[in-house]
């Protein structure tokens, strides 16, 4: 076997993460959302439903999620909802991209760190490669929802 180094559970389960897991922000459902999608991981069964409404300027006015899954996927979903509010869809997609880069090991600039808020706490997931897809699930769900929304408004 490859040498496996003990990773640090405390890096994975940072206080911020566990707090989002125990006290999820924006948990629930938005009636008749403009953008809505469901993400599902067939290998572990984790599931995220995401809904969001846009204001007149095409900014995200309200957002909510619900679902079932591990602390990482659910905390990541909660963090997502706090970050995308008042953002445009392209801005939300940029955040999704930033998380991918963060988890791939990229060092973020101060400017980028400023944008990502609690998402920074997901950095610890890097040491647990198998959990990376948990952290990404809500964001992939967001990307899917936005893509769907776009193809629906301009068929």
């Amino acid at each position, binding site marked *: *076997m490859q040498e*496996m*180094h*003990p*990773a640090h*559970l*405390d890096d*994975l*389960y940072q*206080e911020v993460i*566990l707090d989002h897991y125990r006290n999820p922000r924006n948990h629930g459902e938005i009636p008749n959302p403009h953008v809505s999608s469901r993400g599902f991981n067939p*290998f*572990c*069964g*984790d*599931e995220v439903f995401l809904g969001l409404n846009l204001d007149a300027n095409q900014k995200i006015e309200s957002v909510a999620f619900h679902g*079932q*899954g*591990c*602390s*990482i996927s659910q905390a990541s979903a909660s963090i997502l909802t706090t970050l995308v509010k008042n953002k445009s869809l392209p801005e939300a997609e940029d955040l999704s991209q930033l998380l991918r880069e963060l988890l791939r090991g990229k060092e973020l600039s101060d400017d980028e760190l400023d944008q990502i808020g609690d998402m920074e706490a997901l950095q610890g997931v890097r040491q*647990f490669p*198998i*959990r990376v897809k*948990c952290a990404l699930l809500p964001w992939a769900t967001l990307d899917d929802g936005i893509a769907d929304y776009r193809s629906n408004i301009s068929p």
Partner: protein
Amino acid sequence: MLDAAKIKQDFPILAKLVYGKPLVYLDNAATSQKPSSVIQTLVDYYEGYNSNVHRGVHALSMESTQRYEEAREKIARFIGSPGSENLIYVRNTTEGINLVANTWARANVNDGDEILTTEMEHHSNLVPWQQLAKARNATLRFIPVTDEGTLDLSNIDSLINHRTKLVAMTHMSNVLGTINPVKDLTAKAHAVGAHVLIDAAQSVPHLPVDVTHLDCDFLAFSSHKMLGPTGIGGLYVKSDTLEQMEPFLTGGEMVQEVTFEGATWNDLPMRFEAGTPNIAGSIGLGAAVDYLEALGMENVHQHETEITQYALQALKELAEEFTFYGPTDPARRGGIVSFSSPHVHPHDLGTILDQAGIAIRAGHHCAMPLVRDRLGVAATARASFYIYNTTEEVDLLVTTLKDALRYFSKSLSLP
């Protein structure tokens, strides 16, 4: 009980450290580890007599053919098959079940017929029947699962009826550990003229299984779950049915004579084995059977029953935080314990246990309908035992589960 500490020495992987900690392998329902004798059999094959089978006139080919067919005889005997021609080599349980669905079932299940299965099936013994039912306009029905995790047989006499063409059921649930009364159900099915397929992926590795005693028509199992190599398994088919079955895959090895216009089929069981087989895998499975027979399947089963009872007892301490699934009667279950907690998601449990060197599985265990719709959770954590597991390992599991609980529900640092 078996001398698990001694058995462990036969398994090189169990001497490895994971994150500096001894490996505690409790993911045996997914796949088992392999003893040196099996690994050495593969090496001996590739270093000593590797050759294609059945058609060679040279020394290597004679030896590989002989060992390949000897392995078949050994495996057939191991499951109580009357002859080795009843044992078709397949890649795994899944392929075995698909073979039956695409041959016998496609030819014999018609419009309005019923296929009966259970609510506790692995996807591999469910999706093929969903597909077949769609293709043949047949109805798929389910034997329900009780809250205790056993088959609810209260309506069995209406579920098994004159429209039933096939009963396809697992011998042992890979989620609940439940051992099903497959012999009785087979008798009931035969009484109405239905055929019976047993998914023995979890039973052949862990219990004495005798197809003649069970009287089933089909039985499928996987090598990788019973100490053998990956990529090989067996499908037993009863003689009268086997003789009527048309081939599944076609090509080399399975034909008798071929012209540009058409072909005739080879003898059984070769008729169902198209192309160059997994020769090393088959011989390796033969070596796994040798190992299990030397232990004795009664002893294997007893060892696992005892470990499971010990575990269920030890886990009682956690009964407030965890739900445990499966029958309470130890006689009705094998060495699989599934559990879940509202406080720690199974996936998080898996990671925390992994850091302690303990390998368990977390998820739906390829039985999504059972786990999601019947148990009502998205996932469970599952510890599954085999011949090399000890009560000390169970103790470590329990301690680490407690740590995980504390970590998640109370304090924020592991002790």
